[in-house]
């Protein structure tokens, strides 16, 4: 198969399949998780827990007191690569164009040079994160195949996207096709790996914040 045919396939059939699996898998997993339900808390709340679940959804993005010092690399690297991914995915002109086609919504993008720099920083940070996972005893102890696979599924789209936009290593056509393919792999596997946390972390934070808010503890 030549590069153009490959590109055509990943842009049409491949993407259709990947988005299909992504939507199917995500809905299935979310229904599977949240349909388990939970018991109502019969204890009289300290104050009405109100928006404490919502508060935790945002508050938990900030390191709790004393924690930053204990694990600075985890926090800094975590911030950098998550924000980097956000910038690359949502503020790169070509991606905005794609999302506009899908959703009808559009917003201003950032200059290509800035996106390029972000990609380099994100890639470097993700390598650091991998090194940490391999070197830090706790992280290594906890790590399973899924953790490394999740890392690779996230890393490859950024790498191939960068190489494609900078016309490096392979002809643009082939690299663009590989980029789209890697995104498709990410989409298809996301619901079935720990990457599902992009959705469930909001639920988790909400449950935690809500249950503790019931007792009057802002967590």
């Amino acid at each position: 198969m030549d590069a153009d045919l490959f590109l055509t396939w990943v842009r049409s059939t491949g993407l259709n399949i990947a988005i299909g699996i992504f939507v199917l898998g995500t809905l299935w997993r979310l229904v599977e998780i949240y349909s388990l339900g939970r018991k109502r808390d019969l204890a009289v709340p300290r104050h009405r827990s109100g928006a404490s679940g919502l508060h935790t959804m945002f508050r938990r993005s900030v390191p709790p007191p004393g924690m930053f010092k204990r694990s600075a690399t985890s926090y800094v690297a975590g911030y950098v690569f998550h924000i980097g991914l956000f910038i690359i995915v949502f503020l790169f002109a070509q991606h905005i164009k794609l999302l506009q086609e899908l959703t009808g919504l559009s917003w201003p993008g950032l200059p290509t040079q800035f996106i390029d720099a972000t990609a380099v920083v994100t890639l470097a940070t993700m390598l650091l994160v991998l090194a940490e996972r391999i070197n830090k005893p706790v992280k290594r102890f906890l790590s399973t195949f899924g953790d490394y696979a999740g890392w690779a599924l996230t890393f490859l789209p950024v790498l191939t996207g960068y190489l494609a936009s900078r016309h490096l290593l392979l002809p643009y056509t082939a690299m663009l096709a590989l980029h789209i393919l890697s995104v498709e792999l990410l989409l298809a596997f996301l619901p079935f790996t720990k990457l599902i946390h992009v959705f469930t972390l909001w639920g988790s934070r909400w449950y935690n914040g809500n249950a503790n808010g019931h007792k009057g503890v802002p967590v």
Partner: protein
Amino acid sequence: MTASLDKGISVLKEMIDAPIASYFSSCVHCGLCAEACLFYTETGDPKYTPIHKLEPLRRVYKQEYTLLGRIGKMLGLSKPVSDAELEEWKPLVYDSCTMCGRCSLVCPVGNDIVYMVRKLREGMAISGHAPEGLIGASTRAVEIGSPMGVKLPAVQAQMRHVKADTGIDIPLDAVGAEYMVLMSSMEIINFPEYLGAIAKIMKQAGKSWTLCSEAFEATNSGIQIGVSDIAKVLVQRIVDGAERLKVKTVISPECGHAYTALRWEGPNLVGQPYPFEVLHILEVLDGFRTQGLLKTQGFEEARLTFHDPCQLVRRGGVFDQPRNLLKMVAKDFVEMDDTGKMNWCCGGGGGVSAIEEAVPLRLEAFKVKKTQLEKTGAKTLVTACANCRIVIEEGMEHYKMSIPVVGVTETLAKHLVEGE
């Protein structure tokens, strides 16, 4: 002699709910919970990472409640949880977890890890993998009425001592009193000053109160070992006693887990809200303070610091009250690093202090408290949990420190304006 793996797994299946499913699905293995756990920070052993302690629960969740997990189990790709595995996890689920909930506070994806430890213990206990120390305490609690085997005569002896010391009669089974006071066995045996302090304060505040002959014990081994059916029996005694005496408020003593058991778990255990209110003694005292019912004189000259009992603060929401109260009588009050909801556990909560084989590890974990304490330069440590108090005293003895540990209530009572 009827504990079995099947019953344990079945109980876990009952326990697993949407929050647990969400938590396990969200975990990214970042390991930050380890940094929040004193058993990891003081030993450096990765096996004490909180989320790892939940591995059996995660496997049951995955194999029973997810499609992929079920398929994996059917195809033999994942083995079912075994007795051997649960036995291997016993030291992780019991000895090295005080259910202090610090991990639940730091998890970046928001997992309430201690919530899951509580549930996993249900399955562990019913499948016969609970530590002997906790089984013994639970047995005594159910059969004798107190985990330490304290019976009513011991309480009555305390009442007589207080009468002799202060001249105050302690009401027993007084129907219609406003407050029903509970105690922990630790207070009955080791810290008799608590009851005397209550008597003096209640007298000054002019409040009616009573002890209950059938429900003087506040502690609840059931929630520590993780058997809700037993926890319910113990809570029900208090509910029955309070209803019989028609009290308005039941006061949980200076004890952490008793407050969690009675205030937060109790209504869920008995299946309905109480017809009375439950307050921690610190909440009651702080209420008296704001109403001007608490008059003190003089100050503690020595530098004081306060150890937040986990179940009271991080798991209970009582934070400002002890500080308000201590500031009435302390000239030099200092906070530790990581205070309030971020405070470090004494190392003996969640039933750990009752587990014989966990003592060396608990003393190791105590180093974090030792460091915190030494940094404050405090001459007296005040706390509001008899279990914290005894664990800290033991820890300090081991490390040859000599800082007296006292309760908030007795410290206040020392400074009450007499004769009003």
